[in-house]
C-alpha cells in the first residue's frame, strides 16, 4: 500500500521495463485461453437460451440477452477468473520462489523496496490489462453466441448484427469495462500478498499458490456481486 502510494505520488519509479514484461506474461499470453473459454461459454448459454425462447416463438431475443450478458457479466467475470487461476498462481509462485531463494532479502539489502519492485509492476499490468481481456472475452462470447444463433437458432449473421446494434447499449459495455480494472487490482494484490507470505519451504509455496487462486476467484465473484448491487442501486 505504501509502495503504491509512493509510486502514485512519483516518489518512486514504476519500473517500466518490468511492467512491459509482466504485461506480456500476465495479460497478452492470457488472451487465447480467455477467448476460447468465453467462446465456448457464450455458445453454451446461447444454445440453452434459444431452447427456452423457442417455446415462446421469440428466439430473436437471444441477441439482446447475449449482448447484455456478455458485456456486462460473462466477459469480465470469465476473464477475471481465468486470470486469477492462470496469472494469479504464476504471480504467487514467482514471488514465493524469490522469497525462498532470498532474492527478496537481497533486494531489500540493496536498498530496493521489494513490494515496490515486485508487486507494483504486476498489479499495474493487471489493472491496465484486465479491461483488454474483458473486452476480448466479451467479443469472443458474442462470436460464440452468433455462431450458435445461426446454426441452432436459424438467425443469420446479418440479422444478428442488426438486432445487436439496437440491443447493445453503451451502458452495458461501460459497466463491464469499469469493473475490469478493479478485478485486475484485486487479483494482482491478493496474488502478490500470498507470494510474500511464503516462508521457508516449498511446501509453503504450494499452499500459498492454492490459497492465492481460491481467494482470488472468491473475491472476484464477490466483487462482481457487489458491483451488481451497486449498479442496480444507481440505476445503470
Amino acid at each position, binding site marked *: 500500500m505504501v509502495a503504491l502510494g509512493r509510486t502514485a505520488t512519483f516518489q518512486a519509479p514504476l519500473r517500466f521495463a518490468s511492467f512491459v514484461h509482466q504485461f506480456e506474461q500476465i495479460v497478452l499470453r492470457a488472451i487465447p485461453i480467455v477467448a476460447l473459454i468465453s467462446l465456448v461459454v457464450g455458445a453454451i448459454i446461447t444454445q440453452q437460451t434459444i431452447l427456452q425462447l423457442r417455446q415462446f416463438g421469440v428466439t430473436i431475443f437471444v441477441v439482446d440477452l447475449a449482448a447484455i450478458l456478455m458485456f456486462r457479466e460473462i466477459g469480465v467475470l470469465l476473464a477475471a477468473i481465468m486470470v486469477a487461476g492462470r496469472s494469479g498462481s504464476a504471480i504467487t509462485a514467482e514471488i514465493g*520462489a*524469490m522469497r525462498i*531463494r532470498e*532474492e527478496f*532479502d*537481497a533486494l*531489500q*539489502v*540493496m*536498498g530496493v523496496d521489494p513490494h515496490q519492485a515486485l508487486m507494483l509492476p504486476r498489479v499495474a499490468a493487471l489493472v491496465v490489462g484486465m479491461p483488454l481481456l474483458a473486452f476480448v472475452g466479451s467479443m469472443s462470447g458474442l462470436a460464440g453466441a452468433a455462431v450458435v444463433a445461426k446454426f441452432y437458432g436459424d438467425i443469420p449473421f446479418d440479422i444478428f448484427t442488426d438486432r445487436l446494434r439496437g440491443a447493445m447499449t453503451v451502458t452495458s459495455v461501460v459497466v463491464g469495462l469499469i469493473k475490469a480494472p478493479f478485478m485486475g487490482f484485486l487479483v494482482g494484490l491478493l496474488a502478490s500478498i500470498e507470494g510474500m507470505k511464503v516462508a521457508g519451504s516449498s511446501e509453503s509455496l504450494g499452499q500459498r499458490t492454492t490459497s492465492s487462486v481460491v481467494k482470488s476467484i472468491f473475491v472476484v465473484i464477490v466483487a462482481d456481486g457487489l458491483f451488481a448491487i451497486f449498479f442496480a442501486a444507481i440505476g445503470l
Partner: protein
Amino acid sequence: MNALSPQTGPAISVDGLVVKIGTRTIINGLSFDLQRQEILGLIGPSGSGKSVTMRALVGLIPHDGGAVTVMGRDYAQLNRRQRVETQRNWGVLFQQGALFSSLTVKENIEFQMREHLHLSSKLRSDIAMIKLDLVGLPAAAANSYPAELSGGMIKRAALARALALDPQILFLDEPTAGLDPIGAGKFDELIVTLRDTLGLTVLMVTHDLDSLAMACDRIVALANGKLLKAGTLSEMLESDQPWLQEYFHGPRARNIGS
C-alpha cells in the same frame, strides 16, 4: 568515496543487541565489535542465532533493543534516506547466493548501479566485467543465467554483485558451505585478497574450521543468542569453555592452528 565518518573506531559496534521473532527472544543482549579491515568469523551451534544476527545487522529484521553503530553512526537513529545510504556501504552474500534468477550474471551485477547511480550503460557494463574478473569468473559467464551456473560459480557471481558499489563492509553467510574443499579454499583466499587489496571489512558466518583458520583474524562465538567468547583463533583454542573445546578439539577439528 566514503560518505560516512569518522575514519576511526570499529566499523560496526554491536552493543546489547536484542532481536525477537514473534514472542521468542532469539538474540538476547549480544555485544561485539567488528574492527575495520578485519575478517571476523561468527560461529556457534545450529540455531544459536548467527543468521538472525547477520540479518538484523543488515536491516532485514528489526532490533528490539540495544544499539548498532555503523561507521560511528547509530543505525536506529537514521532516517529512511540515510539508511539507504548506509546500506550502500555494505555488500551481502546470502547463503544460496540469492542472485535474481530472471537476470543474467552481468545484469545482476549491474542491478544496483542501475538502481542507485546514473551511469552510462557502457560504463556500467565495464564495471560489471571488472567485478566479474575480480572474483575470478570467466567473461563468458557474464551472459549466463544463475540456473546455468555451478554452486561455486553462483557464490562468486553473488560476491561480484555484493561488490558492485565498492562496499566497505562485506557480510557473508556460510560462504563456503556446499563448496568442495578446493573451491572453499580458493574462496577463502579470494576473500583475504579482496580484504588486502580493497581494504574491506568482513563479517563471515561459518561452520568451516578451515575458513576460520585460514581467513579469519578474529572469531566471535555465539550460544543461545548471547556472546560466548570473542578472540583470536589461538585464544579460542586455549579456552576451556566446553562447547569451544569440543568445537576446536573434536574429531573433525584435526590440527587447525597447530
